[in-house]
């Protein structure tokens, strides 16, 4: 295996949890809801996933439990911001605090327990092809799932009627409501989908990437997922690009260190964030010169309460 292939493989594993969580949040935000609680849902997924997998000795049940845990937390969030029209920013932050605490309680019995990670799926023959073989055909199921998710979400949002309605709820909930669509119900589905994805991303951390539980193991990845959504201008394929870019920067700064690049490691570690800001600025400058405006869903973050 050449170094380049090895680096590519590492980038993919580092990017996959970011991508899964980001694609879920992207759907949520397309529906006009901003859930800042991704970190909380993700870590609950990680704790529940590994806990259930250890107790039942089944990775599949662990994954399902992680998805359920993410959805349960997102349902709580939905109750707050959709049911009670509470502020989305504050509710999301409260969800993060809640999730970080609850994951510690749930995970406490499992600290330091070793379990076998989920193995890679190797497609016979195809995985033997040099370079692209290991990258494309020798991955764990989550990597395939993340790509399927991207494709599925892209197709759903732009090729289906339901996707159009969902986007309408994010752009102009009043009109969508006037047309007879149940804005709150659609947003609820979107929020639940986002929770499921965040839970799945958490499961990837605790069942595949580093198969064990420790408190606080998401270490800010939920926040990076939020950043990727904005970086991607709310477009699924670009979210994939963003996740791989972020993953790539994280990995390459580690490689730069091993190569003895004489720059303080903090600067290298800050690079992904700085590059995101620069990239975003360039994108917006280009849009501006092309005469186009902001790309965020128009009613993102604003509560909607159907009234008479």
């Amino acid at each position: 295996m050449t170094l380049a292939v090895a680096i590519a493989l590492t980038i993919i594993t580092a990017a996959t949890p970011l991508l899964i969580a980001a694609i879920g949040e992207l759907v949520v935000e397309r529906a006009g809801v901003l859930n800042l609680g991704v970190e909380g849902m993700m870590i609950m997924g990680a704790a529940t996933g590994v806990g259930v997998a250890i107790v039942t000795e089944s990775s599949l049940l662990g994954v399902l439990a992680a998805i359920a845990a993410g959805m349960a937390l997102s349902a709580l969030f939905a109750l707050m911001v959709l049911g009670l029209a509470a502020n989305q920013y504050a509710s999301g932050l409260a969800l993060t605090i809640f999730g970080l605490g609850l994951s510690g309680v749930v995970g406490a019995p499992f600290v330091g327990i070793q379990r076998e990670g989920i193995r890679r799926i190797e497609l016979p023959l195809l995985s033997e092809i040099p370079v692209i073989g290991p990258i494309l055909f020798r991955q764990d199921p989550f990597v395939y799932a993340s790509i399927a998710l991207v494709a599925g979400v892209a197709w759903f949002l732009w090729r289906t009627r339901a996707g159009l309605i969902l986007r309408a709820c994010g752009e102009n909930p009043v009109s969508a409501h006037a047309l007879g669509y149940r804005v709150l119900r659609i947003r609820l589905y979107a929020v639940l989908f986002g929770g499921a994805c965040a839970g799945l991303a958490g499961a990837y951390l605790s069942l595949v990437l580093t198969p064990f539980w420790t408190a606080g193991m998401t270490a800010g990845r939920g926040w990076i997922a939020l950043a990727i959504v904005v970086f991607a201008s709310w477009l699924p394929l670009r979210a994939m690009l963003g996740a791989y870019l972020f993953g790539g920067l994280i990995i390459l700064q580690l490689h730069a260190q091993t190569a003895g690049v004489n720059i303080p490691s903090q600067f290298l570690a800050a690079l992904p964030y700085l590059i995101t800001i620069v990239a975003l600025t360039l994108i917006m400058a280009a849009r501006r010169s092309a005469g186009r405006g902001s790309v965020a869903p128009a009613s993102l973050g604003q509560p909607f309460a159907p009234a008479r």
Partner: protein
Amino acid sequence: MTLTRRNVLAGASALAASTAIPMRAMADDPLNVGMVLIGPVGDFGWSTMHDRGRLRMEELMGDAVTSTLVEAVAPPDFDRVVTQLVRADCKLIFTTSFSYFQPTLRMAEQFPEVMFENATGTSTMDNLAIYNARFYEGRYVQGVIAAMKSQTKQIGYVAAFPVPEVIHAINTVMRGAWSVDPEMRIRVVWANAWFNPGVEADAARALIDQGCDVLCQHTDSPAPLQLAEERGIYGFGQASDMTRFAPGSHLTSSINNWGDYYASRAQAMIDGTWQPEDTWGGLDSGMFELAPFTNMTPEETARAENVIEGLRSGEIDPFAGPIVNQAGEQVIGEGETLTDDEIRAQNYFYEGIDVSMPG
């Protein structure tokens, strides 16, 4: 070296075990011991091991002590937490991070009737002791083993932050490796976290991809070791016995073991013999130990055991001259050796270590 230093730990567990019962009968009220942790108790590393030490102390001393734990305390909250511990009648308080050293000095001055102990601090007061373990002795052994195991002659080192503790650990790995093969080299990656399993794993991958075939880690999670197992190379565990995380590639782990020390200090409080010691316990102190060697041939094991013996007896000194730094400058010459304070303040790497010093 170790043996020439004061060592309050000799036979600590034996002492605690044999005297706990009479002591219990003598003490009217149990001694309340406080502990402040820098991380969450479930970090499975530094903080977890201090908490296990606390539980071990309770187990050894039975009804003679009670203990109170506060976890994940940020430096701005430290003064208040300590004040509350004092108010909750703690007479002996362990503050388990160097980030707490300055504030502990402050609080020790404010509460002269309470005895403080700071882990990895650098000076004492009438009511402030400091304690740490000479983990670097274990690192030296790791270096020897790594050099015996490595084919590529490159050791990968997943390090947290360039603090002195980590720097002199890396240096001693280098020293140990050279004692076997002077062509050994170390590559270091800073994970910029004591604890971030994902990044630790990524750092390990980067090192392996760059050709390292033995991994040392100075971060808390078992992630780098698991990676070593996955990639079929060797690795060492950190803080606790991590054999089960990598049965096919684990060589040994450095196990933090604070319990006996905590018990001996609590006992000293009860006996009225507590002194503001400066404890830096080596391999024979029991403050840390090496997990049983795995995946090693009998010859390799024998050689490693020999090195341990040499460190114990003082025959091997990882900080004996000549020491040449990365830039090729001689730090000390033949026949000289670094003092403890010089070791604590080490801010340069030995030659052969492929890393840049930040700052």
